[in-house]
């Protein structure tokens, strides 16, 4: 898409009350806060996933602070866009984004996965305001998003639908059922984002059960495919704009990322998929992120 078209669309969309449309610089700052949240809440909970939340922090921030038309104060605002993480295990990221965006107080993050908190290990509609549909069993989310996109089309509703998936998750056949359906139905109000961090629980995705060539797959399922560096805000925002502008096909953004991004000893290491940093590790991670557990947890508890 040429930049002029993109600009025109941005202008049309800007009126939509719930979009923040933050600049790259501001997003970069916010993403840092999200990474600090993730590490801090994991240090606190001592249970949960580190790797995926950190790889998705940049496009996640862009989604919540630029792209999405939502009103966190009214999670059921009828005009809202629909967002859904099919990878339910990245709750540290999801909850940080939600809290930072204002769905609930930051201090709630310190009760992640606790019996007396409302932040379940995997996203729960029943427990957390703003979670539209529960997830945690991989591969189910894109179907849900097809249903929402279809409902929007039936109602002539302008909402857009965003579905975050994992690259290991691409091994689930239900994804391809949904992909085939969305391509067939030309659901161009639907945008998928794959956190292409090349890792899953048991190691490299290409060793476990290779998903390559992933772009070819999506194209063969009749999607518009955009490949980007998922840590480059310029590319992320352009991809979102292009997805928004694309007519006649759903768009998938293959966001090439790095698992554990932002913390040196987690970076690109699948062993950090599902475990939290121990307190000392967390301290080191937070130092690398320019803060400390004491400082950042105080911020959260005050928020």
């Amino acid at each position, binding site marked *: 898409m040429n930049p002029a078209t993109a600009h025109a669309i941005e202008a049309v969309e800007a009126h939509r009350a719930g979009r923040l449309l933050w600049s790259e610089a501001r997003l970069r700052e916010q993403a840092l806060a999200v990474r600090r949240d993730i590490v801090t809440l994991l240090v606190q909970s001592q249970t949960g996933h580190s790797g995926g939340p950190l790889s998705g922090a940049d496009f996640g921030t862009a989604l919540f602070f630029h792209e999405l038309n939502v009103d966190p104060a009214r999670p059921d605002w009828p005009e809202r866009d629909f967002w859904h993480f099919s990878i339910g295990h990245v709750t540290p990221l999801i909850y940080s984004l939600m809290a930072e965006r204002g769905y609930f107080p930051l201090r709630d993050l310190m009760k992640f996965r606790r019996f007396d908190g409302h932040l379940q290990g995997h996203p729960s509609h*029943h427990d957390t305001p703003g979670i539209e549909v529960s997830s945690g*069993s991989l591969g189910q*989310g894109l*179907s*849900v998003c*097809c249903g929402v996109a*279809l409902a929007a089309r039936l109602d002539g509703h302008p909402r857009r639908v965003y579905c975050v998936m994992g690259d290991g998750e691409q091994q689930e056949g239900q994804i391809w*059922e*949904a992909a085939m*359906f969305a391509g067939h139905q030309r659901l161009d109000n639907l945008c998928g984002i794959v956190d292409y961090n090349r890792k899953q629980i048991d190691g490299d995705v290409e060793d476990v059960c290779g998903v390559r060539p992933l772009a070819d797959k999506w194209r063969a399922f009749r999607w518009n495919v955009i490949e980007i560096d998922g840590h480059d805000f310029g590319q992320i925002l352009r991809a979102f704009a292009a997805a928004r502008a694309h007519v006649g096909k759903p768009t998938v953004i293959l966001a090439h990322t790095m698992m554990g991004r932002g913390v040196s000893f987690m970076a690109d290491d699948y062993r950090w998929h599902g475990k939290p940093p121990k307190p000392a590790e967390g301290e080191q991670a937070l130092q690398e992120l320019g803060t400390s557990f004491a400082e950042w947890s105080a911020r959260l508890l005050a928020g």
Partner: protein
Amino acid sequence: MSATITLPAQVEKKKTREGFGRALVALGEQDPRVVVLVGDLTESTMVSFFAERFPERFIEVGVAEQNMMGIAAGLAAAGKIPFLATYGAFASCRAADQLRVTVAYTNLNVKIGGAHGGISVGPDGATHQAMEEISIVRSIPNLSLIVPCDYWETYKATLAAARHTGPVYIRFGREDVPVVTEEATPFTFGRGEVFAEGRDLTIIACGVMVYEALRAREALLERGITARVVDLHTVKPLDRLLIERCAWETGAIVTAEEHQVNGGLGGAVAEAVVRAHPVPMEFVAVMDRFGQSGKPEELMEAFGLKARHIVAAAERVLERKTRP
């Protein structure tokens, strides 16, 4: 206030799935939020009536039951009232995880029509004869389950499912089956109906076995035995009060279902009975084996699901009831 049902010698037969299909049209007329999904089985699940009448609210998903369950969930999350239709074997098994996590855990307003329940599916054979649905659906929290007995009850169950907020699974069959109720017969979601009174034992049945139970009652009457017949169409939530009352008042129970014996209707009743008022029970059900091809009547006979099997079970249970 219960209906008392006496059967004529010849009972009209009609397909339960037709009751489902017709009710969907009525719902479509009443409520623009009602949408219908199907997995490449439009005619045989009889959602074809809806498809013709409301093509714009009819969604063909193809052979992809997991996806269909998820799409229905998304439609519900967006305020629609989706009914999906496929064979019960695929609704309950192929999409079990989607039913559990996406639909039931979120508690979404999705209605599932499981066609082709039971051995009476006939010549298609075991894979297509859904006989594990009650056990599976009953185990999942938030999910309700109705197993209507005939055309009219399936019609009403479908309407009731739409009125109830939350996920509901409706199980119905393939064949023409006797119409034992009328349009005016009362139907309350969550309540069993006493279809005939009796003192010696209670036969609790669902689906087509309600007809067999009524026939069994006639045969028992000839032997001087009066059997109460309960149509327990709503298997979940379970009408425990009614079951307890039957146990208390008649002291013996026979359950009858076109379903595996493990964890089905009989299991549900047994769980209620031992917790309130333990009485002897006998189960008329499929005895933990897969189905097979054949004519529906042959199979009902071979798998022990006819009135005479209920009679035999009643006699066994009465013997146990009187033996100290």
